């Protein structure tokens, strides 16, 4: 079985699966059990400054979005950072780290944007012997209104400044956790880098309202008749998170900067995808909150099986491997032509592909009286919609046309050579091809 050991910023962990800073990591009891269940590392629930801790609402703090069969696809929360005293958390962190030296333990922090506040807390974190810190610049609710969390994460100058303080007063790795509630995630990533951050982690949760109670006319979760936007996470946010990760991984200003991938990681495959996009490891919250700590067992066995099948002996072999293939639209090969193809043996004649293509795409699927569905190559633009709506996996496939054959839709011969929009005749700004 493949070796899942990872080295992230010099912090070794037996596997790349870390629990993200959130309720699963809020106390010693949880973290010990998480390690026993096999998690490679833990980012402790965000700590605030000394003094009376924050308070949480006393009503529902979560809302959910479901797929079929009540499968939880998205979770929304209005929880704040830890509501337990700083002292208690620090003592617990020190104890747990002493007992689990081979597991990663990172302390997440969120204190006011004043140098003194950081100067105060960092030496105390140092004393716990934790492996590093993560700066929570992402929490979108409650803390932002107090000038912390995403209120900092949305202002690159603040990120840079606070990161620099941390690098000054703390000598272990500093990870900056980014908020997705921003237009261009590369800006805060640059700021983190300029401030000296060792890595970025992303994403924190996304501003959201998951549902509206139509009797009470209030967003949910509803506290005494009112609701507020919360932070969205879980499988539903993975595509958004992966795009942000890829943007940072391929940006010239941040390329090569270590990334910890967060957002909807639920299975080994999700993790492999984040890592292929450049993440040195992944962090998980919702999957653990939905299925319990044991869910990591599948992540480990699946990743290890896949690595064996691919011949990867260490995670370093595939981290970032997909990054060179992430490009801009304008560089996609316009000479590549494909057609949908329906496997008649696999087809169950539900007609979903037909409805999709006929009503909303290119009228490229023919339906016979006996419900045989076939693609009309002369109409098909290879949009992939039919593939996406077909209930049978691999029933519809996209088949590339061989160069030299004629596309019946355009009447043009498929060219072997790559040509993109930058040189396309329809592009007013096209540069002449050499």
């Amino acid at each position, binding site marked *: 079985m493949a070796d899942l050991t990872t080295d992230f910023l010099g912090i070794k962990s037996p596997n790349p699966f870390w629990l993200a800073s959130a309720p699963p990591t809020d106390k010693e009891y949880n973290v010990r059990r998480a390690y026993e269940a096999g998690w490679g590392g833990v980012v402790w629930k965000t700590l605030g400054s000394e003094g009376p801790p924050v308070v949480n609402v006393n009503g529902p703090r979560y809302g959910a979005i479901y797929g079929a069969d009540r*499968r939880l696809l998205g979770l929304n929360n209005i929880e704040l950072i830890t509501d337990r005293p700083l002292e208690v958390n620090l003592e617990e962190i020190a104890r747990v780290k002493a007992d689990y030296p081979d597991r990663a333990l990172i302390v997440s922090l969120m204190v006011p944007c004043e140098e003194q506040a950081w100067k105060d807390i960092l030496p105390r974190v140092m004393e716990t012997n934790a492996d590093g810190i993560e700066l929570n610049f992402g929490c979108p609710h409650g803390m932002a209104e107090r000038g912390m969390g995403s209120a900092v994460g949305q202002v690159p100058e603040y990120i840079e400044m606070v990161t620099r303080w941390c690098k000054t007063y703390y000598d272990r790795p500093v990870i900056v956790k980014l908020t997705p509630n921003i237009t261009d995630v590369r800006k805060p990533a640059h700021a983190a880098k300029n401030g000296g951050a060792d890595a970025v982690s992303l994403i924190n949760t996304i501003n959201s309202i998951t549902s509206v109670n139509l009797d009470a006319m209030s967003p949910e979760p509803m506290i005494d008749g009112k609701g507020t936007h919360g932070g969205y996470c879980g499988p539903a946010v993975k595509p958004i998170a992966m795009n942000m990760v890829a943007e940072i991984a391929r940006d010239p200003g941040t390329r090569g900067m270590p990334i910890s991938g967060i957002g909807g990681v639920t*299975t080994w*495959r999700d993790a492999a995808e984040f890592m292929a996009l450049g993440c040195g490891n992944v962090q998980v919250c919702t999957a653990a909150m939905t*299925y319990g700590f044991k869910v990591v067992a*599948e992540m480990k066995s*699946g990743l*290890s099986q*896949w690595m064996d099948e691919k011949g990867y002996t260490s995670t370093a072999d595939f981290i970032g491997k997909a990054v060179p293939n992430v490009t801009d639209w304008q560089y996609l090969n316009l000479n590549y032509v494909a057609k949908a193809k329906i496997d008649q043996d696999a087809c169950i004649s539900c007609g979903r592909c037909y409805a999709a293509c006929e009503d909303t795409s290119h009228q490229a699927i023919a339906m016979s009286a006996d419900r045989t569905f076939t693609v009309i190559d002369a109409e098909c633009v290879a949009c992939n919609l039919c593939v996406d709506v077909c209930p*049978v996996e691999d029933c519809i496939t996209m088949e590339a046309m061989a160069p030299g054959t004629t596309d019946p839709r355009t009447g043009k011969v498929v060219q072997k050579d790559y040509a993109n929009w930058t040189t396309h005749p329809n592009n007013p700004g096209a540069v002449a091809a050499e």
Partner: protein
Amino acid sequence: MTSPTAPGIVAGRLSADLLTAGFADLHAPLDRHEAHVAADRCYFCYDAPCMTACPTGIDIPLFIRQISTGTPEAAARTILESNILGGMCARVCPTEDLCEGACVREAAEGKPVEIGRLQRYATDTVLTRQGHPFTRAAETGKRVAVVGAGPAGLSCAHRLAMLGHAVTLYDARPKAGGLNEYGIAAYKSTDGFAQREVAWLLGIGGITLDAGKVLGGELSLDTLSDEFDAVFLGVGLGGVNALGIDGDDHDGVRDAVSFIAELRQSTDLSALPVGRNVVVIGGGMTAVDAAVQSKLLGAESVTIAYRRGREAMGASRYEQDLAASHGVRILFNVKPHAVHADAIDLEYTSDDGTGLRGTGETMTLSADQVFRAIGQTLTTDGGLTVEGRKIKVTGAGRTTRDGVWAGGDCALGGDDLTVTAVAQGRDAALDIHAVLTGA
């Protein structure tokens, strides 16, 4: 070809096509799509009731999740780590009484997750590759004799070999597998699966199969105890109870298990004789299997005669319905009274709480052939202490003699199920290992 209505016990009642169709896989294997749809229904329950209900404690939620995420090989590993005969168990376990009976979706919708079929999907993936997924620990230099190559013995031998011990596996019969090979209904274990599984299991290495050796014949417990560091007995129940009524020795009267063994070893089912009117005495899985397979061979009428009510029947409701769907009639509260040349007299019974008694009222059924399926008995005890007609064991299969363990059907405390035999063989192996290595 004869016909279903030909009198007497004759062969060739059905065409080859009908025989092939009848004896085909009871449940067709799931394909990838079906497996994913079935796996999707699992809730990944905490401390899952299905897992508790499995005698080998397979981590069912985990293996189903591994199927969902496209890694059936990892799923198979999860299964086989707990139950090395997970492939056979997927086919023969009365899941309705075990894991599926406990599944929370049985409670929610009256329709459990199809754990058995999913288990088969996963284990088939690994077995068709024929690669053995486990490796042996370094040789310990210890030697263990395992007598009986049924589920208990195979499971024990595999675990011992994996832990680095050298195992000699003896069996009286020419082929290993025990009742997997000679007893399980043909439609539950098709295409020579039992032998394929044994061959795959032996792929671990470190196990020498010595077939055709009988304990009580060329083998004795004393010599085995002298020659080996430990001995495990998994000899099953070789004998069959007698009816104890007039005509018990009649030509048409036969043990259900020997009939099934002959059927399982037959290469040409059209050459296998069966009665026109068959009556099976008993109420367990063996009775159902004998009845259904008689019907599948072309018997015109098949009746199971069970002495108590439906609730008390050993065969599960699922098995009863399976019999009914094949056209087998089940009579409750009747016991055999006398067997004649082509008929059997049954007497009605009742139980007022003081014990089962005949009411004196009888009925007569046509019967060319009568099968005894009223339980098996211990034939080999190796001179060990016997209790409740089984070898007395305590803890993980320790017999009253030092260095000798027993498990499976022959040992006290089992359920007479394949899966329990596997669990007991494995647990005895772990105990033997602990004793031999002083761990």
